[in-house]
Every structure is written in structure tokens, then in C-alpha cells.
């Protein structure tokens, strides 16, 4: 019944316990909470948390703030994901070539990824707050209101920030994938007279397709869950909630206002949305 190597269960037990305690239990508990008018209470306190059925989901689907948060995620993904894929792929290809200071550049692109978000946000605030360094450089082209308080520019600015911050990680993924492309393909392309751009398009890009699938899915998941930026960079999803995200809305409802039942419903709708987008990506990018 336990198989040939029962001791194996012992080895996997710690991770299974971790998975159950940290991921599975909260996940299923959040499903439970989403069907109740739930709120956090003191241990032992006698409180009434009535069953509300699908009311939390219905409220989310009718909540203009949730709609705004979803719209913001879409804006974010439309800018962030293609930009991440294209720039990371190009930079990884460049950093894979024999260029001067290659090790320095590889490390430099990775630095933002490992820098604490609070510190990175501080630098971007200094750069973008009006009249910050960016506004001074571009002079009359500086937007009014400034970047982070401009209802049309707040989300694109956040998308650019996240692209910059996460770029190092995605470059690393592409660099690893580039090592798996057979050199013979490049030699054959050169023999056939292909230039650098042509070689990049017909050899590198198709060769990186599995990595691109990973990058797209990881970028979508990360993007759909962005929280730090509206929390810190735009002062709570401002201006006028124009940079609010679903996870920030969950935080506001669940933690600040003590409506975790509603926050859980938002979270589960987000899970479903991300799963659908990831499935579409997989279908589109994996097919031959």
C-alpha cells in the first residue's frame, strides 16, 4: 500500500505540510469566508457571521471600484506584458553576445529586482514627483498634473515601474533559455545569408518560445496581483482610485474595513480571471 519506498512519504511530508498550512488551508478558508458576512473577531468572542450565499460575488460584480480595479489590471497587463517580453528578450540576446562589460550589465539589470520595493519606490517618487528630475529634463513636455497624480498617466507609469523592476528576473530566464538554442541553427542561418535581425527573428524568437510562455504567464500573474505600487507609489490607489488594483481593494476591504468575506470573493474572482488568461496564453503560445 505504501509502495516500495515508504520512507519517501517522510521526505515529502514537510513540504506537504507547508503546502497545506500556508496555501491550501487559507485558500479553502477564503472560499468558505466568501459565502459569509465574515469579519475577524477576537478568539472566543461570540459574533454573528450570517451565510450570505453569492451576495459577496454579486456585490463585487456590481461594485464600480472592482470594475475600475479590473480595468486598471487590463491597462497594466497591456503595457507590462508585451514590454517585458520584448525588452527582456532583446536585452538577454544582447547580454548573451560577446559585448564589453557583459558581467557588469548582467548584474546591473538584476539590481532593481533584488532591491527592496520601498527603496525603489522612493527613488521613483523623487524622479517623477513634480517638479522632479524627469520633469526638469523634459521641460515643457512635463505633464500637468504630474505623472503619479495624473488620472491618465498613473497606471502607465506604474506599468513602466514594474517592468523596470522585474526586468532582471525575466532577462535571467531568457539568458538560461538562450543556452538551449543549438549553435548550428545560427551557423545555418549565417550560411543562408541571414543578417542579425533576420537571425534573431527566425532562430532566436522561435527558440525562446517555451521561455516566452513562462515569461508571459509569470508576468500576467505578477501583474494581476500588483499591490505595492498603488500602496506606496500613488498614495493608496490615487488619483481618485485611478491606480487601484484588485489586491489593493482586497487589502482595503479585508484588513482596513474588516470585510474579509467580500475581500475573499474579490480574490477568488481574481484567481478565476488569472487562470483563464493563463490558459489562453498557454493555448496560444504552446501550439505548434
Amino acid at each position, binding site marked *: 500500500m505504501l509502495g516500495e519506498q515508504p520512507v519517501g512519504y517522510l521526505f515529502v511530508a514537510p513540504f506537504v505540510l507547508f503546502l497545506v498550512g500556508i496555501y491550501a488551508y487559507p485558500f479553502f478558508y477564503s472560499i468558505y469566508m466568501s459565502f459569509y458576512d465574515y469579519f475577524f473577531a477576537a478568539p472566543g468572542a461570540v459574533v454573528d457571521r450570517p451565510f450570505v450565499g453569492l451576495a459577496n460575488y454579486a456585490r463585487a460584480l456590481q461594485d464600480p471600484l472592482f470594475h475600475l480595479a479590473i480595468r486598471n489590471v487590463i491597462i497594466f497587463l497591456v503595457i507590462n506584458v508585451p514590454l517585458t517580453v520584448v525588452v527582456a528578450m532583446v536585452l538577454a540576446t544582447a547580454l548573451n553576445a560577446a559585448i564589453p562589460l557583459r558581467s557588469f550589465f548582467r548584474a546591473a539589470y538584476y539590481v532593481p529586482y533584488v532591491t527592496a520595493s520601498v527603496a525603489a519606490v522612493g527613488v521613483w517618487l523623487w524622479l517623477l514627483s513634480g517638479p522632479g528630475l524627469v520633469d526638469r529634463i523634459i521641460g515643457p513636455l512635463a505633464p500637468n498634473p504630474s505623472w503619479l497624480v495624473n488620472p491618465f498617466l498613473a497606471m502607465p507609469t506604474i506599468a513602466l515601474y514594474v517592468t523596470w523592476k522585474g526586468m532582471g528576473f525575466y532577462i535571467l530566464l531568457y539568458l538560461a533559455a538562450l543556452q538551449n538554442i543549438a549553435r548550428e541553427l545560427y551557423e545555418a542561418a549565417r550560411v543562408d545569408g541571414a543578417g542579425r535581425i533576420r537571425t534573431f527573428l527566425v532562430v532566436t524568437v522561435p527558440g525562446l518560445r517555451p521561455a516566452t510562455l513562462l515569461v508571459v504567464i509569470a508576468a500576467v500573474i505578477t501583474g494581476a496581483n500588483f499591490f505595492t505600487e498603488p500602496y506606496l507609489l500613488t498614495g*493608496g490607489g490615487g488619483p*481618485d*482610485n485611478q491606480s487601484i488594483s484588485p489586491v489593493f481593494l482586497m487589502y482595503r476591504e479585508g484588513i482596513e474595513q474588516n470585510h474579509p468575506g467580500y475581500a475573499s470573493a474579490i480574490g477568488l474572482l481574481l484567481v478565476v480571471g488569472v487562470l483563464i488568461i493563463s490558459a489562453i496564453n498557454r493555448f496560444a503560445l504552446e501550439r505548434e
Partner: protein
Amino acid sequence: MRDIRWRPVMSALAMVVGLAACGGSSQTGSAAVSATGPIQIWYSNNGQEVQWGEAMVAAWNKDHPNEQVTGQQIPAGKSSEEVIGAAITAGTTPCLIYNTSPASVPQFQKQGGLVSLSDFSGAAAYIESRTGGRSSQYKSPDGNYYQMPWKTNPVMIFYNKDVFQKAGLDVTNPPLKTYSQFLSTSQTLMSKGGVQAAIWPSPTSEFFQPWFDFYPLFIAQSGGKQLVESKQPQFDSPDGLAVANFWRQMYAGSLAPKEAAQGDAFATGQAAMAIVGPWAIAQYTGKVNWAAVPVPTKDGMDPGQIHTFSDQKSIGMYSSCKNQATAWNFMKFTTSSASDGQLLQVTGQMPMRTDLAGSYGSYFLTHPAYTQFADQASRTVEVPNVPNSVEMWQDFRTAYSTSVISGSQSVDQAFKAAAGQIKTLVNQQ
């Protein structure tokens, strides 16, 4: 792949539900109310309050070897309210927290996190005799006190005398009484004072920000009304609209920036004025040559009649406390006349006690700049003690941000819609 796909979303969910997973046992009831023994307290991490708190704990412990008190600064978090809310859920609150926001009391009460102080013999009379008529603002809808009003920082307009002088404005009697004077003075400060902003209230979206822009002026303009009274929103009244339109003009004229300041704008000289209470004086000493006046009203008002926001902090007793009799006695000890005097001396913040000027005359003789805060402290208004208080303030802030700060919607329209939402919220149980 599967792990990567789920992890971030699961983490977000875990953030929300993690607190629910924290369990434990708690006890409330008559046994705890009469129990004595060691207790823990939290106080603010403000340097002066830490000094005062440590002195109180040391003085108490000297005379109560069997009821020792352990004090510590409140754990770090985005706000004290979040830290306390999480601690209630986890059952890790201390007996007393000397930093309880009245706006969060309804929520903490709903969570079963607070002990009714009215359960202690003579508590209601003690609170009412110490705080006077203002104490009624701290009573919960069930008629009990779940908080001891402790200290207030009546919000006033601080101004930089050097900047005013540079702009050619009257330094001793600045033209800041009416909205038109305030606007005109602000324009002069911007054009001649060499500042980035006339005044720089935080324009961010947190629920508590209205307490430091709209609410003090609304209280003053309305003669002392709360945002909601008898479950009816008051801010969509002509007074509320006048206040909102005043701030809207400040933002539209770039006299108040729409971006958050980097650091304290008044202390760093970026702004000529600030809207804050006397707790901030310690931050300004040695940096700004300041003076303070009451908040403006539409047509001007006798300063002796102007009310303002209290920015009051209460002491809460939390239901995880096992030795509540000791906690109650310690609470009384730290709110005695002598302890309140020490609080005033060390922090410059106003105890929630009647006749401050008479009780601590010698302090105000040596600290004349604080006298006006003592006078203003007698005319303070609190946030309403209503269900869904935090959500109510968040909804109000959203309407204010849209109509006043951004100006993308009319004030009338935004406030009317917010009043409808808030009326529903405060009438829920």
C-alpha cells in the same frame, strides 16, 4: 509551473485569511473584571510619549509589587489601527493601549476586542467628571464606554512667521480668518513667500486624511457638528459644501499641491502653513519660527467660538486582558491630575480634562504658546461613533478626492452620492 501560477494569488488570499487562522483562547467576564496581577500595556512610539509611558510604568511598579506593569511601544505597522485589529484577531492584545483611535472603536467593539469600561464601578462617573461634556462623544451607541478619552491635539493652522514676513503679511494677526482672506493670503505667499505651497495637507486616499483637511473646517463652519449625527450625514449641508468648495479653490489654484509631500512640508519650509495639532510642535522646534491660529470659517468667527477636530487618542482595555482590575486601576492612575500634568509637561499634548488652563496654570505661564491649544481643547469635536466608521470615512474620502482634489466631479454631486452611501452604512448593524 503550477506552483508559480498559484503562488502570488494564494499569497494575497493568505494575507486576508491568515489572520483568521490565528486562534487561541480568550476569556472575558466577571472573573477577569475583578482579577489583579501583572499586565502589559502598549503606548505610542512618539519619543515624548515613550518617555511619559516609561515614567508612568516605573512609578506604578514601585508601589505595586504584585501588579507589575510591562510597557512597550506599539508594534510597527502602517497604522496603529491595523496593528491593533490584527492583534485582536490573534488574541495578542495587551491589557491597555494608549493609542486607540476613536474611529476604530466601533470596529474593535464589533470584533469583541474591547472591554466595556462601564462594567467597572464608578467608571462612567470618573470619565464624565474628568472630561466633562465632551465625554458623551466617546460613548458607544449601547450607552457604554469602551474607551477612556485620554489626550487631544486640537487641530489649528500653524504658519511660518518668517515666510509671512517675507511675503509682507501681518505676522501677529495674519489674514486667515475667512475663506477669502485665506485664499488671498495663500496667493500672496506663493507669489512672494518663496514656498512651494501655501499649505500642504496630504492629498492621498487613506480614510483618515479628511481629519486634517475637510473635517476641522467643517466642524468650525457648522458650529461643532460631526460628519454624521443621529445617523444622518451632515457634510452635504451648505456648510459642508462651502468648506469643500474652499478647498477645491485651494487645489485648483495650485495653492495646495495634489501630490504628497516628500517629508514634512511645513518643517522643511516647502509649505508656509500646516493644519495640525500641538503634538507637532516638537517636530518644528528649532526648524520653523511658527505661530498658530484657529481654522478659518466662511465669513470669519470669534476665535473663542470656533470648534475644531480633536485628533484625540483614547485608552482602550482589550478583552484578552486577564487582570482587568489592575488594568482599570492603572488606567485611573495614568489619567489622574498629576499624571495628566506630567503628560502635558513631557509631550505638550492636552489631556482630556476640564479646565486645563486652571489646573495647570504654572505650565501655561512658562509655555505661553500652548495656551491657545488649551483653550481650543475645550471646543473639540470627535469622529462619530457609528457602525462601519472606517468604511464611512473611506467613502467620504473617495468623494472628496474626486470632487475637491482632482476637481473631476462637482462637489454637490459627489457629496450627495456619498451621503446616500454613508446613510446606508451607518444604519447597518
